[in-house]
C-alpha cells in the first residue's frame, strides 16, 4: 500500500496503542497534522509546546503508558526542551515528535531550523533524526521500546518535512527493532536476593526507603507486602509518594530536606536500609557522609549506574524493583517484631509531628488548605504540584493512598509543570478528580493552558496558595541571606478570578478559613469546567522542618516547636 511518511507514523502510533497525543501545529509538521485530520487518534491542542510535553508527562505518570507529544521544528521543538528535561530527570516514558526542515535544507540555517537532536542529546534517553521514509516505522517502534523499557525516559524523534510527505510502499508489521547495543534487563542476581533476605531477617531497626522506581515499575503492592510482612517502617522520596498509604502506621512520610523529623531520625538510627528504586539524591541524603551512618544498605534499582553512584551498597541488586521485591517476599515469612524499634519511632512521631503555627496575619495557613483537600478527597484524587513551597506542603500534608496519584517535578523542579500535567492526567484518568496545588508564581508560567482545559471541558482544579511571594526562594532569603527579599515579592499579579472567567473557567477567591471547605466542594462538583481557587494564604509561612543544604539529616530546623 502506498502511504505517506506521516500516515505511516500515525499507523505506527496506533500499533503502539497510542490513542491520545498532545501537540501544537506548525509549518514543518503540516503533513503530520494533515494526516491527523482524519485519524482516530485524539489530538489535544495545547497553547504552548511546553504544555504539550508536560501534559504528555502527566498522562504517562497517571496511566503508566508512554506519553506522546508533537511540536513543529525550530521554536516549537525548543519549547519542548524544559518538558523533556523534566521527564528525563524523573524517568518518565515520553516519545516526542518534532518537525524538521526538509532534508535538503538541514544544516543551512533554514527558516525554523534547530538542531533538536543535538540540543536534546544530554536530556533524552535516546534520540533520532529520521532521514528516510523507509526508516519511519522501525524508528517509531524503537523509540517506544526504549522509552518504556529498563529505566524509562524520553525519546525524541525528529522528522524532516519531506520524509513525512514522501509516499512509499508500506506493509504493517514489517518493521523490526534493531538495537544490538540495548538489552532489556531481565531477572536479578538471586545470590544477592538471598543475602538481602538474611539481612532483613536479622535487622533490628530496618527502614525501607522507597522512590520513584517503585511507582514506575508498579511495585507498590510488593512494597506494601514486604513492609507489612516484616513490620518495616517506610519512608518515601518525593517521587515515591503513594508507594505506601499515607495513613498506614508503617508510613514515616517523606525523608530529606523537608522530610518529617521521624523519617530522618529513623534513617539516622537504622541498622538496615532497604533502598528501592531510589538514587540517593542530594535533597534526600543531605550531607552524604553522615547519611544512614549505622545502616547496611540493600540497593535495588533497574539502572546499574545508580548503584554506587552516590552511596556504596552492601547488597547491590540490579533488576526491576517489582521482580526483586517479589523474590524477597517469597523468601520471607510474616512476623511480629521490631516492637522496640516501633516504640522509638512512635515516640518520635508523638514528640515531633508535622505541625504549623497559627497565622500571624489572620490569613489562611497554607498547610491547612492541603489538610482540607485531603479530608475532602480521602486520597481518591490525583494531586499535581508546581514547584516550591506548594510542592513541599502537598508532599507533607496530603495522605496519598495510591501509586500514580502524586505528579510532581522532583528532579528538575520545573515551575509551570503542575497545571499542564494535571490536564494530561485528567485526560488519562477521567474517573479521578485532579487537583493542581499551585503557587501564585508557578501558575503564571503555563497559565495559557486554561484555554486547553476549557476547550476540552476538563474539570481540573487549580488551588493557588497565593502568598504573593516566590515563597521558597523568599524562605531561603530569610534563612540564609539576612532577610533581603531580592525580587521575590510578586504581589503585582493578575486578578486570578477574573483571569479564570476571561478564559471561560470558574474563578473563586477564598480569603477566610470558613470559606475554604465550601469553595473546595463547589470545585469538586464541577464537571465541565476548570476551576481556579485563589486562596489568599499567610504571606510568610515557611516549610518546616528543614535540613539546611549540605547539613546532616539529624540537623533539622523547625518543626520541634512553633
Amino acid at each position, binding site marked *: 500500500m502506498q502511504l505517506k511518511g506521516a500516515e505511516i507514523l500515525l499507523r505506527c502510533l496506533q500499533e503502539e496503542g497510542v490513542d491520545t497525543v498532545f501537540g501544537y501545529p506548525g509549518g514543518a509538521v503540516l503533513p503530520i497534522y494533515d494526516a491527523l485530520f482524519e485519524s482516530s487518534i485524539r489530538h489535544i491542542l495545547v497553547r504552548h509546546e511546553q504544555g504539550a510535553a508536560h501534559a504528555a508527562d502527566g498522562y504517562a505518570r497517571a496511566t503508566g503508558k508512554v506519553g506522546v507529544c508533537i511540536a513543529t521544528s525550530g521554536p516549537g521543538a525548543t519549547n519542548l526542551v524544559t518538558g523533556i528535561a523534566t521527564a528525563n530527570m524523573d524517568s518518565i516514558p515520553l516519545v516526542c515528535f518534532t518537525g524538521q526542515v526538509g532534508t535538503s535544507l538541514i544544516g543551512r540555517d533554514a527558516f525554523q531550523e534547530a538542531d533538536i*537532536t*543535538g540540543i536534546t*542529546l*544530554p536530556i533524552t*534517553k*535516546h534520540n533520532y*533524526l529520521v532521514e528516510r521514509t523507509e526508516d519511519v516505522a522501525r524508528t517509531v517502534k524503537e523509540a517506544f521500546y*526504549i522509552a518504556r523499557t529498563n529505566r524509562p525516559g524520553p525519546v525524541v524523534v525528529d522528522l524532516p518535512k519531506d520524509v513525512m510527505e514522501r509516499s512509499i510502499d508500506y506493509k504493517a508489521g514489517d518493521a523490526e527493532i534493531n*538495537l*544490538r*547495543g*540495548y538489552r532489556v534487563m531481565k531477572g536479578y542476581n538471586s545470590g544477592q536476593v538471598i543475602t538481602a533476605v538474611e539481612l532483613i531477617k536479622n535487622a533490628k531497626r530496618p527502614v525501607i526507603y522507597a522512590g520513584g522506581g517503585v511507582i514506575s515499575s508498579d511495585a507498590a503492592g510488593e512494597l506494601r507486602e514486604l513492609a507489612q510482612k516484616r513490620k518495616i517502617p517506610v519512608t518515601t522520596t518525593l517521587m515515591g509518594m503513594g508507594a505506601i498509604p499515607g495513613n498506614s502506621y508503617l508510613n514515616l512520610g517523606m525523608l530529606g530536606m523537608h522530610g518529617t523529623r521521624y523519617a530522618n531520625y529513623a534513617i539516622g538510627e537504622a541498622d538496615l536500609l532497604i533502598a528501592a528504586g531510589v538514587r540517593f539524591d542530594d535533597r534526600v541524603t543531605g550531607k552524604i557522609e553522615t547519611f544512614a551512618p549505622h545502616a547496611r544498605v540493600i540497593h535495588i534499582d533497574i*539502572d*546499574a*549506574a545508580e548503584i*554506587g*553512584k552516590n552511596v556504596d551498597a552492601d547488597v547491590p541488586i540490579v533488576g526491576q524493583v517489582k521482580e526483586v521485591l517479589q523474590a524477597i517476599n517469597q523468601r520471607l515469612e510474616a512476623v511480629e517484631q521490631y516492637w522496640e524499634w516501633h516504640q522509638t519511632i512512635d515516640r518520635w512521631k508523638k514528640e515531633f509531628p508535622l505541625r504549623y503555627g497559627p497565622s500571624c496575619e489572620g490569613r489562611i495557613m497554607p498547610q491547612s488548605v492541603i489538610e482540607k483537600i485531603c479530608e475532602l478527597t480521602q486520597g481518591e484524587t490525583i494531586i499535581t504540584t508546581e514547584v516550591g513551597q506548594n510542592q513541599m506542603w502537598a508532599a507533607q500534608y496530603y495522605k496519598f493512598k495510591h501509586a500514580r496519584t502524586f505528579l510532581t517535578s522532583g528532579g528538575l523542579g520545573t515551575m509551570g509543570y503542575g497545571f499542564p500535567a494535571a490536564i494530561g492526567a485528567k485526560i488519562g484518568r477521567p474517573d479521578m478528580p485532579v487537583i493542581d496545588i499551585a503557587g501564585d508564581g508557578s501558575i503564571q508560567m503555563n497559565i495559557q493552558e486554561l484555554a486547553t482545559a476549557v476547550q476540552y471541558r476538563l474539570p481540573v482544579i487549580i488551588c493557588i496558595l497565593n502568598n504573593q511571594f516566590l515563597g521558597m526562594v523568599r524562605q531561603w532569603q530569610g534563612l540564609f541571606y539576612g532577610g533581603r527579599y531580592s525580587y521575590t515579592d510578586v504581589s503585582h499579579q493578575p486578578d486570578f478570578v477574573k483571569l479564570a472567567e476571561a478564559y471561560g473557567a470558574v474563578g473563586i477567591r477564598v480569603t477566610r478559613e470558613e470559606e475554604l471547605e465550601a469553595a473546595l466542594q463547589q470545585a469538586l462538583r464541577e464537571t465541565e469546567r476548570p476551576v481556579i481557587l485563589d486562596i489568599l494564604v499567610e504571606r510568610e509561612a515557611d516549610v518546616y522542618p528543614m535540613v539546611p543544604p549540605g547539613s546532616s539529616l539529624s540537623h533539622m530546623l523547625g518543626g520541634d516547636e512553633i
Partner: protein
Amino acid sequence: MRKHTLTVTVENRPGVLTRVTTLFRRRGYNIESLAVGETENPSISRITIMVMGDGKILEQVTKQLYKLVEVIKIVDITEERSVTRELVLIKIRADNNVRADIVQIVDIFRARIVDIGKNSLIIEVTGDSGKIDAIVESLKPFGVLELVRTGVIAMVRGEIK
C-alpha cells in the same frame, strides 16, 4: 588515580562520537586521548579512550557509557596483555649541522623521516606512549616546530575469548 584504556565498540553512525564525548563532559570526566575508526565490520566503529581515574570513576564511566543505546561493548584493557600504539608526526628545525644527530636519534627509536625541507624535517614515530614521550624529549633541544598525535589505539593480544 591512574590512566585507563577503554575500547568502546559502537554503532558506526553519525552522532555516536558526540554522544560519547558529551557524556564525558557532562559527568565531568576528562578524556586524555581518543581515537576512533571503522572496524573489520563496517557497521561498527571502535573508540579507544584513555581516561584518568580511580576504580570508582571507571565503574561510573563504564556504566554510564553502557546506557548509551548505540554503545555495544566496553572493555577496560588496562590490565589485559595488549598492544597499544600511537602515531606522531613531528616537524623539527634541522639545518645541515644537526641533521646527522637527528638521523641518529630517529634510527635509535626506529622512527622514520618522511619529509625533508630546507631547514626542517618531518619525523613519523609509531609506538606506545612511553616511546613517543621519549623521542619527543630527545628531539626537543633541536626545536620542535609542530607536533601532532593520533591518540592511542589498542588491541588485546591472542585470540578472542
